Structures are given as structure tokens and as C-alpha cells.
């Protein structure tokens, strides 16, 4: 059984008014357990709307989402369970910080889950470990932290609920390179322990190539392609027509190939590119 079964999902904004706009248009997708899915697409392609429907915070105009075989819209009262099972990190999640201390902010989710104070404390510490932050942060006000730290506290607030499916909407946008790398590593660490599904939206092709098992390409509310990063980024011309890009290393390898060298072009990460180039060098010298 797949973790998420999405069929015929559509969303129309402002239905029946002059501002009507079809944001998501008939999406069908099946995601299995422990998969990491990267979603790419130009601004306004409906990525955010799509993922918000997976967590039941937005009700689709039509279509169904099955979470481990259960329709998330069937029972209105069980929506809260869905929120906890499908953790959603919104775009710029640091905007939702509100408490006086970091501890209270991370504890907000687990507290709403109805856990005991002792369990909450355990969850908060665990979440803090996932985002690689020191315990001395717990008593500080979230408003006096740096941008990257705020982002990590906000993400820790979702980790603390221990969701089976983790969705992140552009978790690294607007951060410095080091903070970006940190957050990607935090997510990978959470995934390696929890073994659930991770769905994340990003504008950085490097990040998507680095961690996803499958990449979903969206355009104008529709899914254009679903495949492994290697196959997706192999099709540069098609991506270019959708205002998307490929990782820098893929461009380098493609340039080498265009110069007449025999090299495997399906390369998306720095590691595999290094291997391919070394292979080529050995062949040349040997």
C-alpha cells in the first residue's frame, strides 16, 4: 500500500467570481513509504496549493487524497489527526513563531496533540537535536534569533509532532548557503530516523537533485513529469521551456559531452559528476 494516493485533485480559487483561477488541475500521484519527493515548478505553478491539500488544511474543489488507504476528507473530526500525521512546514515558517521562549514554541504542536508534560519535553529535546541546536536556545525568545535559527526553530516545531509524512514548502528560501545546507541535512536526518515520506518544494535544482528519489515537475497546476532526478534533468530543453533550470554540474557534464568526449550525461550531483570525470580522465590517460 502506498503512503499517499492522490487522484483527480483540483483546486479553483474564488470560484464563481471574476477573480476565478484554477490553481491545481487534476493531479494524480502515488507516493510510497520512505520516499523523498522533490517538487519543482515556476512561481505560480500551483506547488504550494497542491501540498496544502495533502495536509487537509485546504479542501480540494474536487479529487481525493488517501493517506495509508484512508480518505483524509471522509471524516471532518479526524482532520486534526491528519494535521499531526502530515506535518506541513509552510513557506517562511518563522512567521508563525509566537511564544516567549523557543521551548514553548516547539512544544505548541505536541501540546495540542494532548501529550503529557514529560512526553512534550522529550519531543522538544528530540526535535532540537534534529535541527542541530543547543539546549541553551530553549529559554531565549524566538524573536531575537537570527533568520536561519528562527527557520530551524519553526521546522523543529513540526518535527516535534513526529509526523509520518513531512511536507516542506521552500524550506531554504531566503537563507545563506550554510543555513540551507544545515536545513537539508536536518531533513535528511529526520527522514533517516523516521523512514516516512518527505515531500519538499524548492527552487534550488541542486537541493532537489541531491536528496530526492523522485522529482515532480509542475506547470500551470498540472504535473508535467515525474521521474528520477537523473531522467528529469537529462531533459534540459523541456525544463527550459518551463522556466526551470538544471544543476550546475549537469551543465558542466553536458558541455564536456558536447565537446566530443564520451561521458555519461545522466549526472546530477557533485559526487557522481566527480566519478564520471575521473572515469573519463583514466580512460584518456590509459
Amino acid at each position: 500500500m502506498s503512503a499517499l494516493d492522490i487522484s483527480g485533485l483540483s483546486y479553483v480559487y474564488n470560484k464563481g467570481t471574476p477573480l476565478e483561477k484554477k490553481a491545481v488541475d487534476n493531479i494524480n500521484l502515488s507516493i510510497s513509504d520512505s520516499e523523498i519527493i522533490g517538487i519543482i515548478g515556476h512561481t505560480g505553478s500551483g506547488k504550494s496549493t497542491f501540498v496544502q491539500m495533502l495536509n487537509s488544511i485546504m479542501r480540494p474543489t474536487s479529487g481525493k487524497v488517501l493517506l495509508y488507504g484512508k480518505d483524509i476528507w471522509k471524516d471532518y473530526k479526524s482532520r486534526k489527526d491528519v494535521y499531526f500525521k502530515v506535518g506541513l512546514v509552510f513557506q517562511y515558517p518563522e512567521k508563525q513563531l509566537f511564544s516567549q521562549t523557543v521551548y514553548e514554541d516547539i512544544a505548541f504542536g505536541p501540546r495540542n496533540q494532548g501529550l503529557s508534560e514529560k512526553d512534550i519535553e522529550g519531543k522538544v529535546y528530540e526535535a532540537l537535536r534534529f535541527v542541530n541546536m543547543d539546549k541553551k536556545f530553549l529559554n531565549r525568545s524566538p524573536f531575537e534569533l537570527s533568520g536561519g535559527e528562527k527557520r530551524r526553530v519553526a521546522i523543529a516545531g513540526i518535527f516535534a509532532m513526529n509526523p509520518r509524512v513531512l511536507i516542506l514548502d521552500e524550506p531554504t528560501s531566503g537563507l545563506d548557503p550554510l543555513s540551507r545546507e544545515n536545513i537539508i541535512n536536518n531533513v535528511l536526518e529526520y527522514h533517516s530516523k523516521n523512514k516516512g515520506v518527505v515531500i519538499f518544494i524548492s527552487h534550488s535544482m541542486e537541493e532537489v537533485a541531491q536528496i530526492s528519489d523522485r522529482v515532480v515537475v509542475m506547470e500551470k497546476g498540472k504535473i508535467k513529469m515525474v521521474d528520477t532526478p537523473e531522467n528529469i534533468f537529462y531533459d534540459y530543453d523541456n525544463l527550459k521551456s518551463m522556466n526551470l533550470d538544471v544543476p550546475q554540474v549537469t551543465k558542466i557534464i553536458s558541455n564536456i559531452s558536447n565537446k566530443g568526449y564520451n561521458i555519461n550525461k545522466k549526472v546530477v550531483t557533485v559526487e557522481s559528476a566527480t566519478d564520471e570525470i575521473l572515469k573519463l580522465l583514466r580512460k584518456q590517460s590509459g
Partner: protein
Amino acid sequence: MMGNMYLGQYIPGNSLLHKLDPRIKLLSSIIFMIISFISGNLFSLFILVLSVMLIVIFSGTSFKVYFQSTKYILFFILLSCIFNAFYGYGEAIFKFWIFTVTFDSIKNSVVIILRIASLLFVSSSVMFTTSPNDMSFAIETFMKPLSIFKINVQDIATMITISLKFVPIIFEETNKIIDAQRSRGADLDDKNIIKKVKAYIPVIFPLFFLSFKRASDLAVAMESRCYNDIIKRTSIREFKIGILDILCLVYIIVILIGVIYCNYLI
């Protein structure tokens, strides 16, 4: 949930009303207010309703949208008018317990409903077709005489523009924060009022924080572009009164005269 329709939202478009000068639109709607309050008998009301329908058609927006954005106000007016109809004086059409329905009271209710509905529709048509920037330009023009009392009209106009511009942004931000807290399990739908107020703290705090931050960012941005009250500023758009604007004024004045004439018919 992005961009639900709210009262008086600007809808970009290319209708006749969109092309009118904002000053003319504001002036016309003020004259229209007078028209709707002096039209007292059925003839003048007929003219009033007809002219409102024309304005709605020329605004390029469907009647449905007008009803949608004014439905709550219309509902309350309808309710009070129904009550009004039961407390009439004069010759009774029928009596029931303590209620007396008379021809005059029904007529009164109909007059009030039609007056207020046309007022709402005309002012909505102006709001639908005028962008916040144009609107503040029009308001500034009409407040210019106040500058002899040493009131800085331009500053007030800027304040109005900023407030109008930020309403949809704050609206959207609020919805986003509500969604974010709800997806962390916040109980925002609790029926208990005290619990509900408490549940909204995680929404209100970040909202205040963000609003103050935005205000101070905006102030810095404006100051770094040399915004101050010493220099006389000009508008980025030049407005010229065209043939369409004159036609609009003629239209309104014809209705005004027509309504006054009809008032003396009976």
C-alpha cells in the same frame, strides 16, 4: 485561503467605468448619494433603479458579484424593513394581533430598501473599478480646500493609500498564520468564547509583530527615497478629463433633474 472577495475590492478590468477619471467617479457617486435620498415616489425610484442597473452593466462586473459583496448589509436592511412594514400608521390593509400593515408602511420599506441598495451598488461600482492609488488621488483632490486650514492633505492621502494597499496583504497574512497554527493542531473552532480568544493568541501575536515590522520597513524605504512633507509631489499618472468623463457627468445630472421632476409629478 488566498483572496476571498470582500466588500469594495478592486477588480482589474477594462470596462467603461474603469476608464473614467477617478475624480469624476467620486464626484458622481456623491451626487448619486443625493439622488438616492431625494427620490421619494415610485416614478423617481423607477428612474433610480434603472440608472443603477445601467451603471452596474457599464462596470463590467456581474450583478451576482454585487449581491455577493453586499449580502450581509442587504440582509440587515431587509430585516429592518420587514419589521418596519408591520408598524405602520394610517389605513390598514390587514391587522394581525398587534401588527398593522398599511399601504404607507409597505411603501416606506420598499423606498428604503431601493434607496440603500442603489447607494451600496453605486459605491461598490466605484470601488470595484478604481485602484487604491487612483482612489487616494481623487480623495486628495477633493480635500485640497482643507489645506487653507494648514492640514497636510498630501500626507492624509498617502496614509489612505497605504492603509488601502495593506488591507488585502494583512488579510492574506492572517489567513496564512491561521492555517499554519491550525496545522499544528491549534483549536481555533472552539465554541467556548474564552477558549477561542485564548486559541487566537498564536495568531494575533505574530500578526502584530509582522505588522510593526512591516510599518518600520516601509518607513525606512520611504525615507530612503527622500519622502518628506517639504517637497510638493506630483502623481505618477496624469489624469485628464476626457469626453467619457463629461458624458458621465451629463448622465448623472440628467438623472438628478429627472428625479427632481418626478418628485413633483405626484
